[in-house]
């Protein structure tokens, strides 16, 4: 079996090449050049775009600048969703680099949460971690951590420090051996073109008979239309970190290895478009998973 740690690294270091363009209605003193950046899939837009803001502020007057927000093809982008999820959900069939439009006025406060400072991002991130632990361990592990341990998780994400983050996060991935897995799996299923933002419900990794539940089992329970019946062609794509894991993959393994730093499995799904394949997927991750599969085959 390929080293599972490779998978953790590949997830953490996944990047999406992005081109930021200023909204043409903004008031500028001269023309603004687009700004290019590699965005971490596992981070949040407002955490990694200080340079974008500085770049465009150079051509704008202070009085024309309000809270920065981002939009893709008319859709305001929710900064509180991990960047990789936003890409997979909205732009996976687009040619790279991902083209995002930057705005400095008319903040859409019916659609987007405000993000006045990094402490808001930190609070949101820690809130997700706590909720995930409530599901996995009845909050016991996260409550046993000290404030400085929580800070280490956040600083690890903020400063892109894989080792610092995982030194602490591994505690959140442990479980009593006799249980076989977490109490419940923290997950969210996002459906493109749905009114509902996401599906999140209780789901155990192990069946009462002691069998490991798979990704397919989860979808069958939570989003059955995504799973084709026997003999029918696949109509939906189910994507995590830009790749399509096999439906037979054990859910417990996915939760331990393919969760985002917030400890949730974020699963995007949409109806297959016939022409185009998946772009912007994490190819190193695909390679790791393929190696793991081939090595475990008899």
């Amino acid at each position, binding site marked *: 079996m390929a080293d599972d740690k490779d998978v953790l690294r590949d997830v953490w270091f996944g990047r999406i090449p992005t081109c930021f363009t200023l909204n043409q209605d903004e008031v500028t003193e001269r023309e603004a050049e687009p700004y290019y950046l590699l965005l971490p899939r596992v981070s949040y837009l407002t955490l990694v775009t200080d340079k974008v803001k500085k770049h465009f502020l150079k051509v704008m007057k202070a009085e024309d600048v309000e*809270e920065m927000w981002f939009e893709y093809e008319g859709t305001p982008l929710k900064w509180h969703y991990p960047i990789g999820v936003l890409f997979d959900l909205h732009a996976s069939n687009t040619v790279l680099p991902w083209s995002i439009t930057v705005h400095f006025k008319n903040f859409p406060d019916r*659609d987007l949460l405000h993000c006045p400072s990094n402490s808001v991002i930190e*609070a949101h991130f820690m*809130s997700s971690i706590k909720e995930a632990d*409530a599901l996995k361990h009845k*909050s016991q592990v996260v409550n046993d951590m000290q404030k400085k341990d929580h800070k280490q998780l956040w600083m690890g994400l903020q400063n892109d420090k894989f080792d610092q983050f995982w030194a602490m996060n591994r505690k959140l991935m442990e479980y009593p051996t006799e249980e076989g897995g977490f109490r419940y799996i923290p997950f969210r299923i996002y459906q493109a073109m749905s009114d*509902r*933002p996401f599906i999140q419900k209780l789901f155990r990794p192990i069946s009462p008979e002691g069998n490991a539940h798979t990704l397919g089992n989860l979808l069958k329970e939570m989003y059955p239309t995504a799973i084709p019946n026997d003999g029918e062609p696949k109509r939906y794509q189910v994507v995590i970190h830009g790749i399509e894991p096999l439906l037979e993959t054990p859910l417990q393994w996915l939760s331990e290895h393919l969760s985002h730093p917030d400890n949730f499995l974020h699963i995007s799904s949409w109806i297959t478009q016939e022409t185009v394949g998946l772009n912007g997927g994490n190819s190193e991750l695909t390679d790791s998973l393929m190696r793991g599969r081939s090595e475990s085959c008899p």
Partner: protein
Amino acid sequence: MSLCVLEEETFRHCCRLILQQSEQLRDGWSWESVQSVLVASAGADSIQGDIDDEDDDADEGVCTVSEGSSQVLQYEYHILYSCSYSTPVLYFRAFTLGRSLSLQEVWSSVHSNFSFRLQNSPLNTITQQEHPLLGQPFFMLHPCRTEEFMRPVLQVAQDHNRPVNYVLTWLSVVGPMVGLDVPLKYTTSHY
């Protein structure tokens, strides 16, 4: 502690009882069955409040309506069930003149007695969150400390063999903190 765990079915039952009372009192609660949400919308003509800007380090976006001026506020409250925490969760938003209120404005429109205590209270955090069913920004009272203030109440009720409507009890604690009054008439004979 199983005492404080609220099962989803019990949540629905508690809400049904609240709705029965609400229909008699006509105070505006409704149940969105598709989304399992208890919704109350306090009409624009029934709540009046003052928005004071007492914040010294005012940043952009904070309301700068002058002190003492009176505005009409409209609040919308949603009670949802959190399966992660097995508790009810309160989401709310507020508008004035078609504009959403900021968190600072919400704080200042809450009665000053509560406002100071709330901002320093370890039991409650109000943050802006995405409504899990509507996908729009709401304010949310974080549920992770609910068990702390519910436990003593539930324990006493259990000791005295008194039935308790978990949701109603919980609402009577958290509601007033965010401008939602729970009339005494709710606590009549049956729970």
